[in-house]
């Protein structure tokens, strides 16, 4: 076969793949990219249907100069960072503890991953029943004589430290990250760690210099996904968070459903900030992995 024939065959093959992907891609592009573009246009006050044809940055100016937005950004970052950090640490610890069991019994894998199937909204309601001042933990504390009234129980839902939200995220995301870490640990086995011990590394050194570098390629992307998700998720802070300051997605929702139609561009601007932050985090991650894979 000549080089030319081979090239045209490759081009044909590529065309075939693109044609096969077209129906799915159309839906994704329409919904995702289309939505993003529409959102961006409206955040720039561009909405020809109601006569807004001059794009401007008024909504961004209003949002970025608004103290509510800035506090909201701080709360959202705090929740995402804390939940991701705690989930990552617990996931690595759980994966290390479960590794010997998982290698023998698939059942542990199943149990570990069980709550991945529970929706966040259901989890949030569960946490509310469990941790709110009228919840199960509060009642147990009262019957154990630790508190006199429900109000004596510490506020763990709609509280200033967003403990309820963080607990829900940690409960839900620890197994998600853990499954990824566990899969790596199970496939790599314990031989690298044995080699390190034999070369003189103590338990902590083995964890620091062998186990962590081996699991990082899985741990980092899983954590980035969790961070990006918790940064943009609406239902859990809506159900378990305080009214003010609230997280960015809840703030965006409130602005969008505000009776004042003028708040809509601001809602879109907030959404764009959320999307932009997620994109920024993902690009930082991609840059890091590219650097990492080059060694």
């Amino acid at each position, binding site marked *: 076969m000549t080089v030319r024939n081979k090239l045209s065959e490759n081009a044909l093959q590529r065309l075939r793949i693109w044609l096969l992907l077209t129906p799915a891609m159309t839906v994704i592009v329409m919904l995702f990219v289309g939505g993003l573009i529409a959102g961006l246009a409206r955040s720039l006050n561009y909405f020809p249907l109601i006569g807004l044809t001059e794009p401007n940055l008024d909504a961004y100016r209003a949002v970025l100069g608004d103290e509510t937005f800035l506090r909201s950004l701080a709360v959202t970052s705090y929740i995402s960072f804390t939940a991701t950090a705690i989930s990552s640490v617990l996931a690595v610890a759980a994966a290390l503890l479960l590794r010997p069991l998982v290698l023998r019994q698939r059942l542990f894998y199943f149990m570990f991953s069980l709550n991945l199937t529970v929706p966040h909204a259901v989890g949030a309601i569960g946490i509310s029943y469990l941790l709110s001042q009228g919840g199960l933990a509060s009642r147990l504390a009262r019957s154990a004589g630790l508190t006199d009234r429900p109000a004596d129980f510490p506020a763990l839902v709609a509280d200033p430290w967003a403990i309820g939200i963080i607990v829900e995220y940690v409960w839900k995301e620890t197994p998600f990250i853990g499954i990824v870490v566990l899969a790596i640990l199970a496939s790599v086995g314990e031989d690298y760690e*044995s*080699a390190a011990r*034999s*070369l003189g*590394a103590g338990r902590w050194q083995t964890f620091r*210099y062998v186990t962590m*570098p081996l699991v990082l390629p899985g741990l980092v992307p899983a954590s980035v996904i969790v961070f990006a998700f918790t940064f943009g998720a609406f239902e859990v802070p809506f159900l378990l968070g305080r009214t003010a300051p609230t997280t960015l997605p809840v703030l965006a929702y409130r602005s969008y459903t505000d009776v004042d139609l003028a708040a809509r561009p601001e809602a879109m601007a907030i959404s764009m900030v959320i999307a932009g932050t997620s994109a920024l985090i993902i690009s930082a991650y991609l840059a890091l992995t590219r650097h990492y894979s080059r060694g």
Partner: protein
Amino acid sequence: MTTVTLAGLVKRFGADAPVIDQLDITIESGSLTALLGPSGCGKTTTLKLIAGLLTPTAGEIRFDNQSVIALAPEDREAVMVFQNHLLFPYLSVADNVGFGLKMRRVPKTELRSRVADMLELVQLPDIGRRTPASLSGGQQQRVALARALVIEPRVLLLDEPLSNLDAHLRDEMRELIHSIHSALGITTVVVTHDQEEAVILADRVGLLLDGSIRQVDSPKAFFERPASAAVARFFGGSNFLPGTWTDGLFHTDIGSFTVPSKTATSGPAVLTIRPEDVGIEIPTAGGDVDTPLVNTVAGVVRSSLYGGRYARFEVAVGSRSFDAITEPRRFDALASGRPVTVRFPPEKVWLLPE
């Protein structure tokens, strides 16, 4: 230099039968000892027990008569080089070699110069910056060896060091292990399933069968003076003839044989002779097989096999059959059905306990 003693060593995983059962061996200081045995006989487990990566169910491990059972692997100074090298994929070659020194917090300048010396020793001086994935199997093996040697261990444990290598690399690696061993004199234990590898590498061999040591000897002794039929069989022995030793002769159902007196213990025993030591002669004209030579019996070639560098025959003698290996050029003369004289040279036969 360190003498390693394993005494009454037992290793059991859960409720299964023990992998190692009452293993006793003393590995002399500065020796290169091979632990030889078939797959699954507990060789690698034994290395891991010495390295401290596994805890024995019972028994004792001593370095220079001091028990090391309570010592963690990182404190034993017995470094294991694994069969699949296990170079850390996220570190450069130099960082891999320097790993043990870094764990010991050796200053950076000293670390760099010791790593360079070690890479020089394994004849790979210029690859420090490369990643393990860019190395060939043979180079990875050398780097793994350098990584173990750089920390100057008391005991070096090599798990199947030649088995993952091509034929020509095996020779190079064998020479390298030999030269490093004679240069550094570290007590070295090599585990292998390949008797040839054990024989060419080691100055002592311990044969491990079913979790316990059957014989510890020089490589030559396994061929010439095996301790049991199982040992002889592992080293390629296939001729076993039961009988009784009395009055200076070994009496069997196919005749009586002279055996060297030092091998003989009176009473029932089993005579063995290696296939390459069995003599096959074509009887002189007239079919007279009663030659004056001692230890000869009449037989018939039952089957033959041409093996390129040798020819192998199965010869029937009465109700028994024996394997014989000769030079390949004799293949055509010794066709199936040919009557032959079989000779067991007295100096080559060996009596085994029944």
